[in-house]
């Protein structure tokens, strides 16, 4: 098989239900290398459930997930990260009471030595690599010791993206990354996302704002009531079509 056409992520007939109610109904979803897919839909459409399955927060009740052609069981966020899938949640991406450097390495700390998974941090390496990681996403950085709680919403998204890039993620899932951001910061985040492909990273972009989706995505998947109701190539469609689909 030509590796260029093997999807990075392929979901087949995914199903998930919560106390008898369908959250996902036989959803197929594909993400190819070097593309950004927009995921749109109203609240309760199943977007969150889908990304929670891909990021290891929940297991599906039916169907299967393939990563680079291999069937996988993503039973924890650790597994997802090991597969190269990194998710940036809207509200819970960072620990505000901790420094930038510490945040970047939560759960993946560089160590001087360790016994049974616990040991001494290599703090100078953490700080240095934090500086490099943030410079790589063009963020004007303060010190890596600054608390994340002191950053603006956009800067926080930037640090989260820097973290994903630093760990060489193949897929970046962004959950409403432009919510509550100023226009200037929104543009910055959109620029981050559109530059992902240059770094050979694919993205799944979840947003309520169709304009933002149109700006950065190659394909758009529309969901409603737990089902995929449309899948459109951006260049073949327009914003009005999507709005009509969503309002239906």
């Amino acid at each position, binding site marked *: 098989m030509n590796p260029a056409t093997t999807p990075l992520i392929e979901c087949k007939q995914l199903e998930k239900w919560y106390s008898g109610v369908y959250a996902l109904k036989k959803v197929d979803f594909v993400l190819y290398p070097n593309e950004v897919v927009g995921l749109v839909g109203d609240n309760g459409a199943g977007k969150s459930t889908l990304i929670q399955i891909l990021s290891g927060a929940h297991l599906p009740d039916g169907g299967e997930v393939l990563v680079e052609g291999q069937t996988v069981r993503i039973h924890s966020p650790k597994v997802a990260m090991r597969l190269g899938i990194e*998710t940036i949640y809207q509200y819970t991406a960072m620990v505000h009471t*901790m420094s930038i450097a510490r945040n970047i390495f939560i759960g993946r700390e560089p160590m001087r030595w360790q016994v049974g998974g616990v040991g001494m*941090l290599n703090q100078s390496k953490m700080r240095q690599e934090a500086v490099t990681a943030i410079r790589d996403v063009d963020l004007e950085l303060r010190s890596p010791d600054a608390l994340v709680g002191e950053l603006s919403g956009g800067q926080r998204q930037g640090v989260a993206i820097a973290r994903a890039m630093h760990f060489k993620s193949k897929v970046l899932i962004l959950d409403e990354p432009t919510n509550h951001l100023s226009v200037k910061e929104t543009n910055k985040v959109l620029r981050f996302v559109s530059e992902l492909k240059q770094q050979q990273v694919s993205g799944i972009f979840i947003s309520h704002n169709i304009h933002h989706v149109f700006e950065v995505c190659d394909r758009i998947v529309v969901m409603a009531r737990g089902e995929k109701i449309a899948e459109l190539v951006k260049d073949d469609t327009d914003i009005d079509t999507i709005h009509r689909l969503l309002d239906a």
Partner: protein
Amino acid sequence: MKRLFKRFFLRPELSAIIILLVLVVLFESLSGRFLTVRNARVILGVLPELGLVALGATMLMIAGEFDLSVGSVFAIVPMITALLARLGWNIWLAILCALLAACVIGFINGWITLQFAIPSFVTTLGMLFAVRSMTVVISGGFPPPFPENAPEWAFTEQLGIIRVSILWFVGFFVLATLLLRNSNFGNWMYATGGDPAAAANMGINTHRVKIVCFMMCSFLAGFAGLIQLFRLKSALPSLGVGLELEAIAASVIGGAALTGGIGSALGAVVGAALIRIIDNGLVISRVDANWFQFAIGFLTIAAVIFNAQLRKLARGMKVSV
């Protein structure tokens, strides 16, 4: 310069250190006998007991939970030790078993709290009563005799100005500091307490982190109880009554946040030292000792307000650290 100030203001234990210095000056000027070798010996002799409990309470608080059962664990560990020794057990084996029991209590605290998703306030409040009751029951109503040829040299022997217990205290303080500041587990503790959802999203097993912290907290409370057993030479079932509140006060005065994610081992030590110094300072300044609890109460509130103000001040400084 400004940068240095800001960093300094953001330290959680700063206000406690300032208050400590003020009180030392105050008590010395009131009594003229506060800063003496003899008095230092008195304070250092009793400090490790509260200090160790506060250390455990602070670590647990950093991970976002807290433990009201430490006072009861503080009593049951000496009780188990003395009872097993009376049965003819080797004293070291008895101590080991008692400390193991403390760890089991900590595990149960954590397991129930997390498994049933109930507040640790409730779980450990229940445990406070249950363990206290167990202590009285197993004592049979009479405190067992203090074990003969008990290894006092290992816990409370006086070495000049200090007791051996201070060495344990310093040892555990250094370990706790290394754990919190320099280990990956410490990073997970701060993350778990600071934002459990974010920590879990980053692949941290927050339940495991919390359970380990519950166990460390119980272990240190039990160890502190053991030190008191050796100092008082009597395993009373009433040891450590009310200690849980003093320990939480010490943690909070030392800058730990009840909401989790903020705190330091140094803060716990300074917080505990403050409480012991007030206790001692009031007595040697001939103030009515009944004011002690008033002072602790006032201090707890004042320290938290002071801390919050300093943090606000630091945040407002338009400079990056």
